[in-house]
């Protein structure tokens, strides 16, 4: 007797065998192999868009490359670019401007953000509504914030000057918030504080909500005053959160570019020219690629070093 196998049935069996083999191959992979399989695309992407450009930038920082003079041969200049930057008075002046902006804006954001967190932490009617309203500025894009504050500060038609004029009697068009040497540095601090205090508030709120009620109850039993409770319980327990907020905001503001560029373009003169604006001008207006790569590395090392020291201090505070 001859057994006749239906052609379709044989095809099914073949494909089943192929599936079984494939499954066995996957099953053959170790856990580590599967982990690598999942992580590999991310690592490849990171290498392509982060690590490779970083290494390339380090390489360029030792050269004389200027993209606007691509007809000139690119020379290896050793540490000349770094030497030029570190001995340039203008770069130090820009670093001072940046430091002043970071210190004032972060200090104000912490004060206002923490104050708002203390207020919002109390349960009251329409509490959620006010929380959302307070959070609105940080939800906006810095480009939008820069543009609409530029309009608000406009001396002729800007409402900001009119409000100031209303309370002080100063003619609205007699001063320019973004155009005067004495006012412009405070203007960028003001707008940054307006935008990012809610962010600090959120972090502080998380800290406040993590303090167990029983600690306050014990303090009440001990008849500790509200001020005493604040200094001995609230502040020490929120401190790691506050320090984290300072770290995040300081790093962000050290590399602040978009909002300040839109508000003042670094002016008047170079009064509000933060180091990131200098970097952009050197890299993309003057096209001094080698020089600006060196400046970018110096800034990166500065932020990285300062953040590392800060994190160590933060860990010590947490351990206390």
């Amino acid at each position: 007797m001859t057994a006749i196998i239906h052609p379709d049935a044989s095809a099914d069996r073949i494909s089943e065998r192929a599936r079984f083999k494939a499954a066995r191959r996957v099953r053959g992979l170790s856990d580590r192999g599967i982990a690598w399989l999942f992580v590999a695309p991310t690592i490849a992407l990171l290498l392509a868009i982060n690590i490779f450009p970083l290494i390339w930038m380090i390489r360029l920082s030792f050269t004389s490359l200027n993209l606007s003079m691509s007809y000139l041969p690119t020379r290896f200049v050793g540490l000349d670019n770094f030497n030029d930057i570190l001995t340039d008075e203008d770069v130090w002046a820009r670093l001072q401007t940046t430091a002043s902006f970071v210190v004032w804006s972060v200090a104000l954001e912490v004060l206002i953000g923490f104050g708002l967190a203390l207020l919002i932490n109390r349960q009251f009617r329409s509490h959620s509504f006010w929380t959302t309203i307070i959070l609105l500025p940080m939800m906006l894009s810095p480009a939008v914030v820069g543009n609409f504050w530029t309009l608000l500060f406009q001396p002729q038609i800007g409402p900001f000057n009119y409000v100031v004029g209303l309370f002080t009697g100063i003619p609205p068009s007699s001063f320019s918030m973004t155009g005067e040497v004495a006012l412009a540095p405070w203007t960028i601090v003001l707008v940054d504080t307006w935008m990012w205090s809610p962010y600090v508030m959120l972090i502080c709120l998380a800290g406040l909500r993590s303090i167990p009620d029983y600690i306050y109850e014990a303090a009440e039993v001990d008849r500790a005053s509200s001020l005493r409770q604040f200094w001995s319980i609230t502040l020490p327990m929120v401190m790691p959160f506050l320090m984290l907020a300072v770290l995040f905001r300081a790093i962000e503001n050290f590399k602040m570019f978009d909002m300040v560029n839109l508000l003042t373009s670094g002016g008047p003169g170079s009064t509000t020219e933060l180091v990131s604006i200098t970097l952009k001008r050197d890299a993309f207006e003057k096209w001094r690629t080698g020089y600006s790569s060196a400046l970018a590395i110096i800034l990166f090392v500065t932020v990285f070093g300062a953040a590392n020291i800060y994190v160590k201090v933060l860990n010590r505070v947490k351990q206390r």
Partner: protein
Amino acid sequence: MQGFVNSANAIKGLEFYKELYKCCTAPGLTNAYMQEGLDAFKSGQVAMQMNWFAFFPGLYKDPNVGGDKIGFFVNPAGPNGHFTQLGGQGISVVATSDHQDDALRYIKWFAQPKVQQKWWEIGGYSALKAVVDAPGFPKSAPFAPQFLESMAIVKDFWAEPSYAQLLLDTQKRVHDYVVADKGTAQQALDLLVKDWTKVFKEQGKQVAGQ
């Protein structure tokens, strides 16, 4: 460069420019360009402004400030001469281009009198003698006589590949002195010479006196 860019007359000129800025600029115009200047003029904040000829047809047509309410004038003469600056950049042929012949052919075509005449008629600006010396030219636009006068006193600009860098340095030093009140005119121009020396050295050029 040394002794020319920062000459005594250049210092005086810069000081005079600062005086003009302090007395007569509309508030808030610390970083103004063409558009802001036009806005200040059209809104009546300033009675006079200096701008490119390219904007004059639009200003002349403006119902509020144009027509018989507007007049055009040439830069006034200074103590050491009477000059004006040619707006825009000249056409350059890039030395590293693979299409230099095409670029040169285009320039030859564009420089033809009939093309330049047409260019002026449709709103472009021609400085070709055949166009500006034509008998009907002074009446061809309300500002044509001033254009003619300006072209006669044009001071040439530097045709430098690093033009943008030199301009950015100038803007920075002048702005720091005029707007931000940093240092003196002498210091601003001395620093400018230093900046420009750096740019030229990067270009591999010799700088006299350095």
